[in-house]
């Protein structure tokens, strides 16, 4: 053991040399090398975790850099998992780093998670979160949950057996996934760059406490953090029958469970493709509503449209003509689904669609057909 490297940590009598040996013997898997993963993995590597696994199939984008602080401008376009590997090696070569440069899905999750003692969830979508939760329940692995949006974060420790208490999991907090059209992501409504840093560090802290057996772990609880009000709140979870019933009971059930469908099955709004949209445009008999906020780029010059920002939609319903089909558009096709849902709720008999994948993809589509 490199005593000099870990000296300040070994000096803590709660940890000591024996705690350091526990860290060295431990295997921690980090799911997602985004804001949470970048934050947590640096401290876990520095602390001397013996084996760190990182699963991510994404490449570094410029818009990641304000919060995913392991990456530099020169890393844009590189695979995140590979860059993380290099950084961790440079930080602490004692750590054995296992890179899974692939998408975690239910065909590989049990094998990968099975190799580790503790799982830290830094993923960015509900399908992965439910799948990782269920895999951890099946394999009986502690799950350190973290999630962020705008100025707010969650941390929780699931599936951990502490003296006497039954262990809870993510489904005891949220038994079913939200409607995708009403649940925006950071891509759409933003996140303060430092926030995943804070939450990732709390996840890393809980991981270190579990491994070394010190302190009070945030078990069977979820803690919320609001960066604007600087308020923390902790909520207690209990085991629910609904959660137990929802989780696949066997490996075969898990592999047959369609998590993408589970997390996307609730939309009733028809989405129209670019091709169908082009055809409808030619009928000259439709109302197109841009639901993005004022002055969002790119500007729409290809067709006439109204601009009714999603945030104001409820106050502007009276001005919308209902005698012809309505198509909502936004940048990626998510906010337009929310807007269409609101319109449909208010005008059940109107014909309402959402432009699939949004205006950016539509512009790319127009470019691609004009180049043929």
């Amino acid at each position, binding site marked *: 053991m490199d005593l000099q490297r870990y000296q300040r940590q070994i000096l803590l009598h709660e940890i000591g040399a024996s705690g350091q040996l526990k860290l060295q013997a431990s295997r921690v898997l980090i799911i997602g090398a985004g804001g949470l*993963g970048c934050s947590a993995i640096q401290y876990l590597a520095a602390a001397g975790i013996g084996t760190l696994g990182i699963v991510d199939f994404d490449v570094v984008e410029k818009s990641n850099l304000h919060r995913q602080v392991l990456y530099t401008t020169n890393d844009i376009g590189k695979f995140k998992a590979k860059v993380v590997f290099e950084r961790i090696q440079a930080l602490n070569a004692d750590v054995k780093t296992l890179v899974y440069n692939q998408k975690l899905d239910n065909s590989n999750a049990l094998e990968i998670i099975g190799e580790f003692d503790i799982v830290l969830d830094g993923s960015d979508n509900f399908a992965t979160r439910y799948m990782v939760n269920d895999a951890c329940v099946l394999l009986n692995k502690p799950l350190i949950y973290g999630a962020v949006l705008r100025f707010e974060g969650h941390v929780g420790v699931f599936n951990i057996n502490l003296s006497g208490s039954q262990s809870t999991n993510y489904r005891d907090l949220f038994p079913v996934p939200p*409607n995708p059209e009403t649940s925006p992501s*950071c891509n759409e409504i933003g996140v303060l760059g430092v926030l995943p840093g804070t939450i990732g560090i709390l996840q890393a802290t809980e991981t270190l406490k579990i491994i070394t057996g010190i302190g009070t772990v945030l078990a069977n609880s979820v803690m919320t953090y609001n960066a604007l009000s600087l308020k923390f709140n902790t909520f207690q979870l209990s085991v629910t029958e609904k959660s137990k019933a929802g989780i696949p009971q066997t490996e075969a059930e898990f592999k047959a469970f369609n998590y993408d469908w589970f997390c996307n099955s609730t939309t009733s709004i028809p989405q129209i493709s670019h091709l169908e949209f082009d055809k409808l445009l030619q009928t000259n008999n439709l109302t197109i509503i841009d639901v993005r906020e004022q002055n969002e780029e790119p500007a729409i010059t290809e067709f006439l449209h109204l601009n009714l920002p999603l945030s104001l939609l409820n106050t502007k319903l009276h001005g919308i003509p209902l005698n012809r089909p309505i198509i909502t558009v936004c940048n990626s096709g998510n906010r337009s689904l929310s807007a269409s849902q609101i319109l449909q709720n208010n005008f059940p008999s109107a014909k309402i669609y959402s432009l699939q994948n949004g205006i950016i993809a539509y512009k790319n589509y127009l470019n691609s057909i004009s180049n043929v």
Partner: protein
Amino acid sequence: MEIQILVFGQAQEITRKSTWSEVNTKDTEALIFKLSQDFPQLSVINYALAVNKIIIHQNTELSDGDVVAILPPFSGG
């Protein structure tokens, strides 16, 4: 009888305030109904409900001074 409401995450975008008081809501079902009248968009989103910092999944009686929290899920990483 007065209870305090705490609103988190995306639900705050709908209610436009993070905390207020409600009167005459005998249980969480009555409260959810009242909220859906005052904020129709709240009935479209999913959220977890906590009474006095305990997450609940069934109708729960409310008494004076209780604090009810509305916690929508989010998945950013």
